[in-house]
């Protein structure tokens, strides 16, 4: 099996104020992509929430178990990660 390949994406997280460079792997699932994007924002610039996250690419919400390669996410493309439910962690 070939080694996982890094894929640099231009990622935006929910209500954050900038898009950011995040390096994901082509073997990462969308669940892992969401975590990698969120780690630069959640708890830093936006509060933690008790909610799931969803990844959107080219206007499509992607299943949590789908990998970057399966989703066809190419380097340098926009990826959006959002809270699915907006409940503030108390």
């Amino acid at each position, binding site marked *: 099996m070939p080694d996982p390949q890094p894929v640099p994406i231009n990622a935006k997280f929910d209500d954050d104020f900038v*898009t950011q460079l995040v390096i994901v792997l082509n073997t990462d699932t969308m669940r892992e992509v969401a975590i990698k994007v969120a780690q630069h924002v959640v708890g830093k610039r936006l509060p933690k929430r008790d909610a799931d996250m969803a990844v959107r690419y080219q206007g499509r919400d992607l299943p949590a178990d789908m990998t970057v390669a399966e989703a066809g996410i190419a380097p340098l493309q926009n990826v959006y990660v959002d809270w699915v439910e907006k409940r503030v962690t108390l």
Partner: protein
Amino acid sequence: MARMKREEWYNIARDVDWTRSYVDEEAVFPEWLSGSGKVPREAWKSWDEPYKCAYSDYVATQREKEGSVYAVKAALQRSNIFESLDEGWKSTAKVHFGAVSLVEYLAVLAEQRMGRFGLSPAWRNMAVFGALDEIRHTQMDLYLAHEFIAKDPQFDWALKAYHTNCWCAIVGRATFDGMMMNPNVVDIAIQLPFTFETGFTNLQFVALAADALESGDVSFANMISSTQTDEARHAQQGGPTLEILMQHDPKRAQWMIDKTFWISARLFSLLTGPGMDYYTPLEHRKQSYKEFMEEWIVAEFLRLIEDYGLKKPWYWEEFLAGLETWHHSLHLGVWFWRQTVWMKPQGGVSKAERAWLQEKYPHWEEQWGPIWDTLIQNINAGNIGGTLPETLPWLCNLCHLPIGTAASPNNPKYPVRSYPLTHNGYTYHFCSRPCRQIWWEDKDMLHQKTIVEHLLTGEIQPPDVGGILAWMGLTPEVMGDDAYKYKWAEEYREPAPVAGAEGGSHA
């Protein structure tokens, strides 16, 4: 011997030109530098500057101005005024010195290009004065900043910034290479003296002079006021050039103005916006950035371009909306990525300051409050690491500012998003539709690699925050940090529970 009055000889002297007999006109004034385009060369004979100035007048006036600036500086040098200046104000001055000093030197080169390749002797004459002006501005900035280096090494970036890969320097190079270094002289005249200097330098030199005086930095106020008197004169090279261009190629004139106005507006939202609305102490603020822009830039500039028969730029509504948001976003970005700048940005979001911001910008709390609240919680929890970056914001391929900063959170009309463009199989990203449009039209003139692209092509090693800071030239002694060591966040601390106030009495 009786001297002739200036008006008796001025027009003859300034119109002296040569009829070349042994060299082609094209060799002396090549089109790629003189840039006449659709304008017949004969038409440039009508170029007429509104402000007449002979060399003797110029020298006498400049000598007086120089004397005044340096006398004030010498007097204040002996005082302890530097120590008493607010740290936030010092940051404004550091931004100015680092971002402006060597751009003034680039302007020398642009003026010299007009002084050599302008197609009217009168224009070339004015441009020579312009070049001398810009040499003076470079020297004043560097001289004033130099005095403070022993007290604060961040002032060394007055000279250093532009020679580094700091993102601010890349923003400056991208902007001013496109405006001053790459174009022919007609385009320079429309972009630099007409759009940038007439339209925008008021902002840096008039608004900031008022804030400097209020903040007690008399020497700085005096220096930039003196600079502006020169700008007001040599900026007048733009008008006569535009007048001729409007007769022969109004489409070109409109395009040059539209693109330069947009790029300048993006730049000043970084250069001046945070200084006016965040770094200047609250009690010293005269006007908000938006108020100043509306009064001095929007109204004045529209009147000016309409006088020449030009239309509002196509993105006008987007620009006006940006006055509400751009500089707040950039301030937040500078503070969060504060290690990447050569000054100490202050948060500027104490409760009183937030009340002022909310009054001036009715959506401020809704758009920026949640992010600042999260940062404040981290500060008060002692988690400073949580307020620092571990990656780069994606940068716009035109203005090189972070993508998102031409918008704001909770803003349905201009949401935080990228405007991508795939060209020759490569995806470029832009902060806004106008940046994308301008890049597409002028990519040969305006394209430079962003820091993200430098990182992804392996030029920055190691490819982490430490490697990026080193690549930018930021060393620990000049790396930015919060201006007040986060003390401003203390007022947001939850009061400690009073002993015995909960759980009833156990007495």
